[in-house]
């Protein structure tokens, strides 16, 4: 397959222009700038908060310099706390065309939108000349997340993703699973899979942190829809979620924005460090997908039993439906029907291979269901992390 070669050497599967609002007050203007170009790989991302936050800064920077992104336009109100100048400098240093427009300086909504449209037209012209390069499975980073889970998720779609993960990792790809809050109850089983002895206590600590965080907040990752779908407890949901990781050794732990420098299986620790603040670690599936993308994911595998419809800005989302009844109801939104395993029409291995093939097709340019429907979700909230410890990454 062919990929887009960035000046920083990274290889992308899409050639996206990111339009970034740096505070909620600039959201509408940024959305209006994107609107006429929304079918031309121009995506809207942003951070709503006015107060600066180093996690949010890192998230936005990693998304703007993601290998799928070719150019970025920052849209600022003017008085927000986001470090616009530093971000602009870092994006430009990566070799990507980038600019910032400030609504207060530009002369308001109408003038900023017009200036944004002018900039996008020029950027799209420039991106036509992006060089392409040969890309293989070992150049890919694939993330996985589950959302709207029911009891079928853990017996069809999730173990099928695990099969696809094992195959990708064997061929040198990077693979990331996450949701430490949904791994509560499987920590000991997971620690036994650590590729290096020093990683095992880090894996245990990671889940322990999640358990403490959720206990303080009095609420797990368990949503009412999970119970309606037949799941009863956090640990039951956890076991079903855990099997997405497959059977390969776990090579490392990432925090949002850490990009693995080699292939292998990684756990993404999404629960903030330090005291509990700013509420739930992840307020929605969309936010988790964004964190996987900030870690370099070219594609996210999203398994769902109840039937999520989301996609994402920056990187395509392949939706794998676990429940055959849901698949029939929401088939327009789904890419893979893993529910057919329950109806005896396919084995786990066959669906695992179907997911693998789908990844290669999407990496080569085929649109996912959510891309075709225009989904471009993005959600970044306040969080704080300490730097990733040395034991967490392969030497």
């Amino acid at each position, binding site marked *: 397959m062919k990929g887009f070669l960035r000046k920083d050497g990274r290889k992308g599967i899409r050639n996206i222009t990111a339009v970034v609002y740096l505070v909620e007050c600039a959201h509408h203007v940024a959305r209006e700038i994107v609107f006429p170009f929304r079918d031309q790989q121009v995506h809207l991302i942003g951070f709503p908060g006015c107060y600066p936050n180093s996690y949010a800064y890192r998230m936005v920077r990693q998304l703007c310099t993601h290998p799928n992104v070719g150019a970025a336009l920052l849209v600022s109100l003017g008085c927000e706390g986001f470090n616009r100048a530093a971000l602009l400098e870092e994006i430009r240093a990566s070799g990507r065309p980038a600019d910032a427009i400030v609504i207060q300086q530009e002369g308001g909504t109408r003038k900023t939108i017009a200036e944004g449209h002018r900039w996008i037209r020029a950027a799209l012209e420039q991106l036509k000349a992006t060089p392409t390069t040969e890309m293989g499975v070992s150049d890919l980073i694939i993330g996985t997340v589950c959302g709207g889970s*029911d*009891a*079928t998720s*853990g*017996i069809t779609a999730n173990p099928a993703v695990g099969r696809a993960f094992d195959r990708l990792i064997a061929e040198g790809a990077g693979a990331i699973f996450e949701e430490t809050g949904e791994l*509560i*109850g*499987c920590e000991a*089983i997971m620690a036994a899979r650590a590729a290096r002895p020093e990683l095992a206590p880090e894996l245990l600590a990671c889940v322990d942190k999640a*358990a403490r965080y*959720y*206990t303080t907040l*009095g*609420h*797990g990752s*368990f949503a*009412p829809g999970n*119970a*309606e*779908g*037949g*799941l*009863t*407890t*956090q*640990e*039951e949901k956890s*076991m*079903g979620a855990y099997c997405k990781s497959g059977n390969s050794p776990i090579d490392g732990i990432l925090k949002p924005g850490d990009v693995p420098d080699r292939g292998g299986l990684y756990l993404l620790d999404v629960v903030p460090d330090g005291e509990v603040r700013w509420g739930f670690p992840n307020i929605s599936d969309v936010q988790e997908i964004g964190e996987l993308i900030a870690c370099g994911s070219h594609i996210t595998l999203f398994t769902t*039993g109840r039937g999520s419809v989301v996609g994402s800005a920056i990187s395509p989302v392949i939706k794998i439906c676990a*429940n*055959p*009844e849901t698949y029939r109801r929401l088939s327009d939104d789904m890419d893979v029907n893993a529910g057919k395993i*329950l109806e005896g029409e396919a084995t786990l291995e066959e669906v695992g291979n179907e997911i693998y093939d789908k990844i290669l097709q999407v990496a080569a340019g085929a649109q996912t269901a959510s891309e075709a429907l225009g989904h471009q979700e993005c959600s970044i909230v306040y969080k704080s992390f300490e730097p990733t410890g040395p034991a967490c990454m392969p030497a």
Partner: protein
Amino acid sequence: MNTSSPQLLRLHEADNVLTVLSTLEPGDALHLGQTVLTVDKRLPIGHKVAARPIAAGEKICKYGVPIGSAVCAIAEGEHVHTHNIKSDYLPTFERENQHSYFQPTP
């Protein structure tokens, strides 16, 4: 993975619950090995039933690992869910209008 009957899936030999593979309606026959029971309430796909009688306080096993504990005695074939088992980690929350029997702890 071996099925105890086509309606139900046993994920691990050590499990004391089975997963419903296709939605069962009241009046449907539920085949549990040699035992045939009559379903008394709708059991949607993905829900669980007891593979054998389970005592109050006993661990509930799925995937070969404990997923919670029984809060009361559960009969063979009975629906196993938030009304008769609880998490050993965190309380399970449901929408207010769902089940009055579940009171989330503060």
